[in-house]
């Protein structure tokens, strides 16, 4: 890990030039919004999951995501000298920068599992790209997040296997979910405007596009073994999608997300200046 920058947020932020700071803010917002929104959808299962034991387990996953969002909003707040709750709650729906993968409601259990699987595996690669980040505050936070994500990956993979091998109905639901989700899954590691600059500054180890290739290559064996949808074809060393990546990977959010936004900001908006 680079020790060229001090560990505290505002000092570390001051060491970056303006364009790099902008690019970093864009990345942090994308990651924080991703964790925030998936945490919301998954927290909806609290109290109504298929099995009481699984209810408790799934709720912990949702809480972890919100906890990660919290630390990421905190980093962003230090970068911009702002308030984390205001960043989290104070924007209009279309100003959120989460991947469109997270615009879908939780739908059914297979859908939620499929979405978690796609998101967590992609996020794991993204965290790998940040593990040795020259921006020390982020590297520190990423190290902790990765340790929690191990459990998430185990849970998601175990459920994908269980549904894929569980008979006709679970298998069909999982297949349908993956087919619907694949195009939007390509939004998680879609390039950001400031990608290259972050790689040059040592904040990111590789461009997101390279990370996306590694993610897809990593998933291929499992999905092929289980006979699950994997809409990609090999073109030399790369995997090219056979589905279309959305034009606006982190924008143009769905009506479902607008509904969610209405809910999660309702109390906050009743008095944004109040303490809650």
């Amino acid at each position, binding site marked *: 890990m680079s020790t060229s920058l001090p560990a505290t947020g505002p000092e570390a932020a001051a060491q970056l030039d303006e364009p790099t700071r902008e690019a970093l803010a864009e990345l942090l917002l994308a990651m924080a919004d991703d964790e925030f929104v998936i945490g919301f959808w998954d927290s909806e299962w609290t109290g109504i999951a298929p099995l009481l*034991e699984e209810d*408790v*387990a799934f709720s*912990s996953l949702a809480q972890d995501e919100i906890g990660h969002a919290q630390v990421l909003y905190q980093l962003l707040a230090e970068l911009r000298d702002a308030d984390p709750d205001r960043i989290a709650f104070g924007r209009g729906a279309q100003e959120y920068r989460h991947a469109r993968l997270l615009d879908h409601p939780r739908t059914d259990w297979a859908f939620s599992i499929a979405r978690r699987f796609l998101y967590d595996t992609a996020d794991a690669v993204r965290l790998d790209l940040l593990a040795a980040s020259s921006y020390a505050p982020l590297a520190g936070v990423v190290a902790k997040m990765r340790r929690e994500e191990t459990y998430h990956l185990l849970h998601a993979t175990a459920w994908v296997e269980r549904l894929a091998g569980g008979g006709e109905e679970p298998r069909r639901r999982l297949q349908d979910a993956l087919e619907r989700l694949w195009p939007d899954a390509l939004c998680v590691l879609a390039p950001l405007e400031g990608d290259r600059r972050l790689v040059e500054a040592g904040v990111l180890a590789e461009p997101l596009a390279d990370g996306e290739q590694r993610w897809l290559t990593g998933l291929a064996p499992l999905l092929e073994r289980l006979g699950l949808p994997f809409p990609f074809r090999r073109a030399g060393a790369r995997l090219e999608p056979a589905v279309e990546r959305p034009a606006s990977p982190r924008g143009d959010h769905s009506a479902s997300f607008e509904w969610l936004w209405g809910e999660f900001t309702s109390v906050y908006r009743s008095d944004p200046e109040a303490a809650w």
Partner: protein
Amino acid sequence: MEVYEVFRQEREGAPMQHSGNLLAPDPELASHYAREFYGRRQESVRLWIVPRAAIRDLSDPDLLQPPLDRSFKKPVGYSADIKRKLAAARDRLGVGSAGEPEAEDPVVAAGRKGAEQA
């Protein structure tokens, strides 16, 4: 679905304590759920997850609380006698006791305390 009993250890070196049980379809999920129920608040450093079917229960009072005297195996079997005989030894030597109860032998006290904490 099977019942799994969960034992947890609160800190390093502490004994495994029975904490509860849960239902799970396989050992892998049983471990996940045990973590949720007995570890999500960082309250444990170790968990043992055991199928209930693997546990042998023994509660027969004839075996565990046999009725005939076993005080020779416990401190209480000695304390009264020692007190009496110590008084007799002092009398023989003409050394009066101050009439206060003797402080307990610290080595014996430490030994008993250690066992009680276990």
